[in-house]
C-alpha cells in the first residue's frame, strides 16, 4: 500500500520511472491500482442494520493510501527490496502487508 500526505499529490503524474517495467519483467506484479484522492472517498459502515455513510476516508490521518500493488514474490526481503525501489518510497510511505491467504510478501 502506497501512502503519502497531501504533498504526494504533486507526484500523481510522475509515473514510476523504470519500476513498473522492471517489476513486469520480473513477473512479480499480480495487480494493483492508483487511487483518486481521499476527498473523493466515501466511507460505509453498517451498525444495527443501519447504513451510515461518511464523506471522506476512514481515518483522518495525515498520510492516506494513494494506491496499492499486489506483489507475488519470494519473501519479505524481496518485498522490501521491491517497495524500496518504488519512487513513492522517496516521498511517501509504503506499507507491506501479507495477504490473508498466506501468500508471503504481498505489497
Amino acid at each position, binding site marked *: 500500500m502506497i501512502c503519502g500526505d497531501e504533498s504526494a499529490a504533486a507526484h500523481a503524474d510522475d509515473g514510476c520511472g523504470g519500476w513498473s517495467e522492471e517489476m513486469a519483467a520480473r513477473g512479480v506484479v499480480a495487480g494493483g491500482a492508483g487511487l483518486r484522492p481521499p476527498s473523493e472517498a466515501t466511507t460505509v459502515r453498517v451498525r444495527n442494520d443501519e447504513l451510515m455513510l461518511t464523506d471522506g476516508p476512514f481515518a483522518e490521518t495525515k498520510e492516506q493510501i494513494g494506491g496499492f500493488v499486489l506483489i507475488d514474490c*519470494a*519473501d*519479505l*526481503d524481496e518485498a522490501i527490496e521491491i517497495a524500496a525501489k518504488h519512487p513513492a518510497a522517496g516521498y511517501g510511505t509504503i506499507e*507491506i502487508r501479507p495477504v490473508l491467504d498466506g501468500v508471503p510478501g504481498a505489497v
Partner: protein
Amino acid sequence: MTFEDIYRQEWGQVVATLIRLTGDWELAEECAQEAFAAALQRWPTHGVPDRPGAWLTTTARNRAVDWLRREAVGAQKLREVAAMSDESEPPYDVPDDRLRLMFTCCHPALAMEARVALTLRTLAGLSTAEIARAFLVPETTMSKRLTRAKQKIQHAGIPYRVPPAHLLPERTPAVLAVLYLLFNEGYSDVVRSNLSGEAIRLARLLVQLMPDEPEPAGLLALMLLHDARRDTRLTPDGVLVTLEDQDRTRWDHAQITEGVDLLDAALRRGAPGPYQVQAAIAACHATARTAADTDWPQIAALYTQLPQTPVVALNRTVAIGMADGPAVGLRLLDDLADGPLAGYHLLPATRADFLRRLGRWSEALTAYQEALTLATTESERRYLDNRLREVSVRA
C-alpha cells in the same frame, strides 16, 4: 555435564534444525521441548548418549514427523522432514543453523524487543517466564510478544536464512546487540555461564563470516576480555569480587592477548563503533598490571565516545571519580540521582563506594543499605552486605 548444561548447549541447535526442516517455529519449539522431556525420562536410567545433540535432534525430528502425519500435511513435507539423517551436515554456505536462526530472529522488520526475546527463547532456550523477568514485563505480555513475532515471521515471509552479502552490513548490528545481551545474560549469572560461551562461539562465527566488518570483531574482543576475568569475579562461596580486588594472576592472559589483538586489528580499519570502544575500555582494565596502574583518564575519555545512555554516564562518572578523586565523582553522581537511573542498584552502590573511600562511614552505611534493597543477584547482595558490615563497624 549436567542435564541443564546439555539443555543450554543443545537447545538452539535442535530448534534451529527443526525450523529448517519444518518451517514451523511453534512446532519446532514444541518438538524440541518434548525431546528434552524424553531425555530427562530416559537418560537417568539408560545413560546419556555419546552425542546428546544428535539424539535430541532425532527425537525432536521424530515428534515432528508424528505430528505432521497426524495433521495429514502434504507427503512432500513429510518426506523432507523424515529423510533427514542423524549425520546430515548443514549446507556448505550455512556454517551453523543457529546463525541462520539468529539472523532471522534479528530481522529489522521485527521490533527490537521482539528480536531479543525471540533469540533468547528459540536460540538460548530461556523460558518465557525467564525472559519476562529479564525485561520486567508480565509473563503473559512476553508470551504474546513471542507469539506475535513468530506469526509475523511466518505470515510476512521473513526468510529463514543468513542474508545475502549485500544485506549483511545493515543486518549485522541487530545481531550484535542480541549477541551482547546473550553474553551478558551468561556473564552476570554463574548458572548460565555457557550462554556467554555460546555468545562467544556465535561471535566467532560472525567474525569468520564477515571478516571485513570491524564491529563483530570488536564485540568478540569485548566478550573475550570480559570473559578472561570470569573466574575471579566471585569468591569460591559466591560473593562478588570487584575489579580492584580481583586476583589478576588468575585472569586468562592468553584470552586477553587474543582479545587485544582482535581489537587492534579491528581498530586499524579506521571505523570505530560502540563495541570497539567498549572493548578498548575492557582492554584498559585487562592490561593494567595492578588496579592502581589502571589508566582511568583514558577510560573516562573512551566513555565519552559512546552513546550517552544513563548507564554509560554512570560508568563515566566512576572513571572520573577514580581519576580525579571520589569527591569529584560524588558531585557528578548527584546529577544522575533523579534521572532514569533512580532505583538502579549500582547508583547507590557507587555512591556508597565513593563515600567509603572518603571515610564518610555513616553516609556510606545508608547508601549500602539502599543498594542492598535494590540489588538483583545473590552475589551482589552478599558483597554489599560484607561492605555494609565493614563500614558499620566504623560508622
